[in-house]
């Protein structure tokens, strides 16, 4: 258990520090891509992705920093893409909103809410037909459930009994619009429960709990050949797009944020390690190693060249 918790912490720390570095460097205007930050949702990204196998596949949204790093651990490619450099897999064509790394199991992300969900369902269908025992997880926010295609996709996945995990990382807002302005029902999970799938609904910032719930859910999927719907609540620390807080805007309160901050997923996991007997000096060593890795990635990305302009026309058609 100790080893597991260290692993979970390492990835959460990597994600948090990476985004703090983005905050530090963004003003230099070298990362010319709109940032939709993951701060606050690290436990969901890491808990779910850690319960998946390396061969499993995930799909994301424009807010995918956390799941990209949780799934691929590829910090070099991450910063190369943020800086839009030739060394990145996408050579900067995608940026923060459109990351993709198929070899690392990150199959793509969409800036249009809910649009990757049916694609993930089709990917799960392909996996099922060739019996490769790969699972697909698709991440989205609760705003996606306002889109018709979410329900279409859920329906077809349940109908066809596909090996897919729907992960609703629910921060309560669609951009700045709260649930109360968008939803004519009490609970999304209650409705999804009526479909032929398993539903797990939990509001926790404990990554270990999320990991265990996901692992148990996957076991249920194996036993019953039914999809899994995970619904986890979290709090978006920063503005919808951008690297700053926006509590002055008036649509939500700093008090609410501070309440969530008390059980911040990254800090809580660090405390857990120490409470369970991990020497704080060792934790610091782990953190320093990750800090160094991030710094190296940033330096590499900054020093790398941009691609040739001919690249514009590459990859439109096969």
């Amino acid at each position, binding site marked *: 258990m100790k080893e597991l918790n260290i692993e979970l912490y390492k990835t959460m720390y990597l994600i948090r520090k990476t985004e703090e570095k983005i905050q530090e460097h963004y003003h230099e205007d070298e990362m010319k891509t709109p940032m939709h930050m993951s701060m606050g949702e690290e436990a969901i990204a890491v808990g779910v992705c850690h319960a998946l196998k390396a061969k499993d596949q995930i799909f994301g949204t424009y807010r995918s920093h956390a799941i990209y790093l949780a799934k691929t651990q590829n910090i070099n490619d991450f910063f190369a893409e943020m800086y839009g450099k030739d060394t990145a897999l996408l050579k900067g064509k995608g940026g923060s909103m459109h990351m993709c790394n198929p070899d690392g199991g990150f199959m793509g992300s969409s800036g249009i809410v809910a649009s990757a969900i*049916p694609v993930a369902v*089709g990917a799960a269908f*392909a996996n099922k037909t060739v019996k490769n025992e790969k699972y697909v997880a698709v991440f989205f926010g609760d705003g996606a459930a306002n889109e018709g295609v979410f329900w279409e996709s859920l329906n077809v996945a349940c109908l066809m009994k596909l090996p897919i995990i729907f992960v609703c990382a629910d921060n309560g807002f669609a951009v700045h619009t709260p649930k109360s302005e968008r939803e004519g029902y009490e609970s999304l999970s209650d409705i999804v429960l009526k479909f032929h799938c398993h539903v797990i609904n939990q509001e926790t910032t404990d990554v270990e709990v999320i990991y265990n719930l996901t692992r148990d859910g996957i076991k249920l999927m194996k036993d019953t050949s039914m999809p899994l719907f995970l619904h986890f609540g979290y709090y978006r620390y920063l503005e919808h797009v951008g690297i700053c807080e926006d509590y002055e805007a008036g649509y939500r309160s700093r008090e609410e944020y501070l309440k969530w901050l008390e059980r911040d997923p990254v800090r809580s996991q660090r405390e857990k390690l120490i409470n369970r007997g991990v020497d704080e000096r060792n934790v610091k060593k782990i953190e320093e190693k990750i800090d160094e890795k991030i710094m190296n990635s940033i330096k590499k990305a900054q020093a790398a060249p941009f691609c040739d302009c001919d690249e514009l026309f590459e990859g439109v058609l096969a």
Partner: protein
Amino acid sequence: MRSITYCDALNEAIAQEMEREPSVFIYGLGVPDHKRIFGSTNDLVERFGKERCFDTPLSEDAMTGFGLGAAINGKRPIHVHIRADFLLLAMNQLANMVSSYRYFSGGKLKVPMVIRVIIGRGWGQGHQHSKSMYSIFAHIPGLKVVLPTTPYDAKGMLISAIRDDNPVIFVEHRWLYWQVGEVPEKPYTVPIGPANITREGKDITIVSTSWMNVEALKAAEILARNGVDVEIVDVRTIAPFEEDLVVESVLKTGHCIIADNDWVECGFSAEAAARIYDKCFGRMKSPIERVGFAFTPCPTVRHLENAFYPNAITIIRAIEEKLGLEPTDLSGEEFYSHENRFKGPF
């Protein structure tokens, strides 16, 4: 060589490709039902089973994304829409996902996906079961758009589309389903891209798409009796549009009419005209004339529907005006009418 219908040619292409390549599957609303998409999906579910030939919920949007997801994971899906109008429900997936997925995977993923759509007038189909729409798809980089006219091209181009590693919108005019032509039994391919000269002539070029090829051919036959020699170029692919044969023909004849099976406004005929002017400027004897649908929604009642659609007579009159000829007496001529094919009511 044996002759079969356009519809049977499509069916044969699918069956042979499903036989050859296990990753090919076909799906869509009504694909395995008793009507079998006007017969074009006959026998597929019996031969290949429900896993490779299946019906879907009424979810065009999700089922298009579904095809994309299957394609990037190694499958070769064929998604069928019995009307092109229904594909509009999937415009988000087409324009935001399917067309650009390869680009935004850094060229790592490929999207070998065919979307079959049926267009064209039937028997009082009205404005939501008859649209062409293809120029809209051709506007988006990353999609190929083909519209074969003959049974030979239908089979050869469908096989090409299935083997293509890119998304291909495959447009089939409903009235073409009954066209009969020579089709080899063995699988073969007709390349996506090049146009085809279906009738050689020296006086005027008709650039036509889909069903308008049939009308153009009829017009050419009638005018030939008056000594007018019409050349017809069948544009079988509008994306990528390879204009070489069209340009060659217009440089030869000096006159050009574009007969597109769609509205004229911002349609394929505008793209074709721009490309022709670009290459033929100063070397044409008259400006390009465009023939297409009336710029209205398509009405249901027959006499208005007839006024909405252009046909061989429209083309004949356009040619006569362009060449300064007296109007031909068309009394006694037999023109294509759907009444001869399908007697309503349903």
